[in-house]
């Protein structure tokens, strides 16, 4: 198939950036979206032009490195996939595809389609952990955990930290990301111990970094490649409010 691409090009963080048009030909339907970009980049290199910078790594939908806002949607038109798992058969021959980086104050563009998501690391550094040192922990089976809780904790822990929730949210809110971590740990006895402290610290950091607030549109859940439920945001709200009320 042959495609027309409108791609955001931006030299660096200070550049204003603009869209540029490209044509890519003979893409097989079985190719992934990123393989299509590989082909384009290879062509650009042979033409002596600079290839398009985009983040990617595992190409299996688990590392969370790939991003891309494709035709107005985070990770493109397919549901429950990351961009690396999006395949060209979801498009038609002759289509024009618009590709933009994640856009958020908290995720500044580094180059072209690459953004800086270190804000996520900072939020997790603020408290997204259980304070245990290596060694000196009880036997793994010492504390039984109801299967339901373990399963729900796993649902939230499936977050890959890709940033699609922020990218798609009309408010640029990181609530689903923060909620996934807070909820996952709050559901386990190991994480419950410092759940209040964690919720407060992570929300404070999130607010500080320039993310917007949650207005419960649910777009994050719909575009999350791992389908993480906004019910976890309710748990975060609960954890946070209870913690604050006790202060």
């Amino acid at each position, binding site marked *: 198939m042959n495609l027309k691409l409108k791609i955001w090009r931006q030299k660096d963080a200070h550049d204003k950036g603009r869209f540029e048009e490209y044509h890519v030909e003979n*893409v*097989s339907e*079985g*190719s*992934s979206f990123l*393989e*299509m970009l590989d082909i384009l980049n*290879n062509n650009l*290199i*042979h033409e*002596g032009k*600079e*290839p398009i*910078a985009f*983040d990617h*790594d*595992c*190409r*299996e939908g*688990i*590392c*969370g490195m790939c991003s891309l806002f494709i035709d107005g949607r985070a990770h493109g038109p397919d549901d*429950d996939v990351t961009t690396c*798992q999006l*395949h060209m*058969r979801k498009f038609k021959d002759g289509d024009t595809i618009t590709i933009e980086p994640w856009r958020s104050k908290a995720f500044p563009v*580094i180059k072209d389609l690459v953004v*800086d*998501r*270190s804000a*996520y*690391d900072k939020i997790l550094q603020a*408290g*997204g*952990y*259980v*304070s*245990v*040192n*290596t*060694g000196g*922990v*009880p036997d*793994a*089976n010492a504390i*039984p*955990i*109801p*299967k339901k809780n*373990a*399963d729900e*904790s*796993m649902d939230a*822990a*499936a977050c*890959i930290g890709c940033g699609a929730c922020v990218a798609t949210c009309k408010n640029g809110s990181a609530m689903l990301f923060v909620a996934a971590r807070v909820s*996952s740990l709050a*559901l*386990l006895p*190991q994480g419950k111990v410092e759940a209040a402290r964690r919720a407060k610290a992570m929300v404070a950091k999130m607010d500080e970094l320039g993310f917007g607030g949650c207005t419960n549109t649910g777009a994050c859940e719909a575009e999350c490649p791992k389908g993480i439920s906004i019910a976890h945001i309710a748990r975060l709200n609960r954890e946070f409010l209870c913690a604050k009320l006790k202060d």
Partner: protein
Amino acid sequence: MSILDSKIPEGPLAQKWSKHKADIKVVSPANKRKLDVIVVGTGLAGASAAASLGELGYNVKVFCISDSPRRAHSIAAQGGINAAKNYQNDNDSVYRLFYDTIKGGDYRAREANVYRLAEVSNSIIDQCVAQGVPFARDYGGLLDNRSFGGAQVSRTFYARGQTGQQLLLGAYAALNRQIKKGSVKSYPRHEMLDVVLIDGKARGIITRNLVTGEIERHGAHAVLICSGGYGNVFFLSTNAMNSNGSAAWQCYKKGAMFANPCFTQIHPTCIPKHGEQQSKLTLMSESLRNDGRIWVPKKKEDVEAVRSGAKKPSQIPEEDRDYYLERRYPAFGNLVPRDVASRAAKERCDAGFGVNETGLAVFLDFSTAIARLGKEVIAQRYGNLFQMYEKIVDVNPYEEPMMIYPAVHYTMGGIWVDYNLMTTIPGLYALGEANFSDHGANRLGASALMQGLADGYFVIPYTLGDYLSHDIQTPKIDTNHPAFAEAEKAVLDKINKLFSINGKRSVDDLHKALGNIMWEYVGMARTKESLEKAIVEIQKLRKEFWTNVRVPGKEGEFNQEIEKALRVADFMEMGELMARDALNRNESCGGHFREEFQTPEGEALRDDDHYAYVAVWEYKGPDQEPELHKEELRFDTVHLAQRNYKD
């Protein structure tokens, strides 16, 4: 004594680690604060090591090439992690885990290392649970286990199909806690380009800031390489696109010896290549072989009909199907180990029975299982994998069989390390897949996660202290030392050289060409001739690389092409060493299969009399043949035997 001192402690196998821990020195808290440690890589090994060392009080700097430590490719491990907990009461034990791992590795790993691995495996599970890793549980609230290839007990702990992700997030969380405390400083989007030696000891690294292109110097009292494997030599593999062997390779070129480079694991259940535009292969969990049956058509005309689309695979009658694994290995059937299953698939495809357009695919069929258990049970067991397959291939595996083909997955070889995980360069350590130590010639499923975390959580915090206890008088490493300037200059020269070539072929083109040579001649089945040819071809290609590569852009900026070029430049050298090692090893064992050395039934034929050693290669300079050293493997506890999966 050979140049290689493995420092394996004396005494009975089961007591070696305890005795060693008692014998080695420790560093006082006050002194730890004065010591700097560099950790390169943030996968399971790197993140767990950096976090644990930070907790102990060392000043740790941790580097990764991704935008966050959490992206490391450990995250993609699906199946699970082994431990000898014996929670299932199926007579598992540290010894049994040790024995299975040694045997699975086709008797090419060190007994003492593997025993220690099995010994600390239980602590890993305890640690991860304490960190809040949501392992699968039963209704009683206790941990669940599943079975995996190469074992007769149920000892694999798992978190759905995302065990690697959950373990890595646990280690990453521990790392984040230390970053917040200030004991660890994180350098994401930084790539190590060289290791710096002062007076023969590792004293720092040279890095490139991938955002700004700046070349930076970092000094430390010890350097830990946790940068994973080098499977991307093959271009197409299940490794992440950015996984590379360059950090390890710089260590090799600075004098750290490289062990068993030819031991590569080819995983049998990957989604086949769809065409020349492919840049990455996707793994489907080994667990699928529990219920799937592998076959190809018996008749060539059916093969043609399937390839052209004239016939659907489900239309081929039962009697015209060749369930070749069940035919060849009646006892184990579709559950033979990875290396055996991979070779059998290649054999059928080479004979012209491959079932897709490229002729490189076999069927993995669930129709029998669906008929026996019902679609619902199959959906419960493999629903997410089936969905993933359908997303990628656009075929519904409930109706038509999956197509699979083997792909490069893991490298058992790596930097040679002693019992303390120290390389042949003092102060330079290698952990996880980057080292060679625990898997011999073939790694069992669910053991990679175990090894990475064992090294990082429970081995290096002890053994590094022993080394650093002799270094407490050494002040902060001065990065103005001439050794840093020299290393930095070499790195800059290399980068400038790559930009200046301005040839006609892209880095990816040349990488693909290398991959083709590797897969064709150093792949699943190797011969003396193929390996000799590979060495010549790689040398030719390397020459072309250095005269005809085109790296667009310029130095001093975010530039993914120069990143790739630097890595592929190293792959061009690594591939040759792999071929040399494979050529030297005149036997077949585990993932290394030499066609000349097989039993009359076509199975791997080991030569324990001549090759029960670790092949350790020493770098001798550019375009010089490396020198081979041998570390003899002593098997005091297990009895060496031929693996048999037929009856």
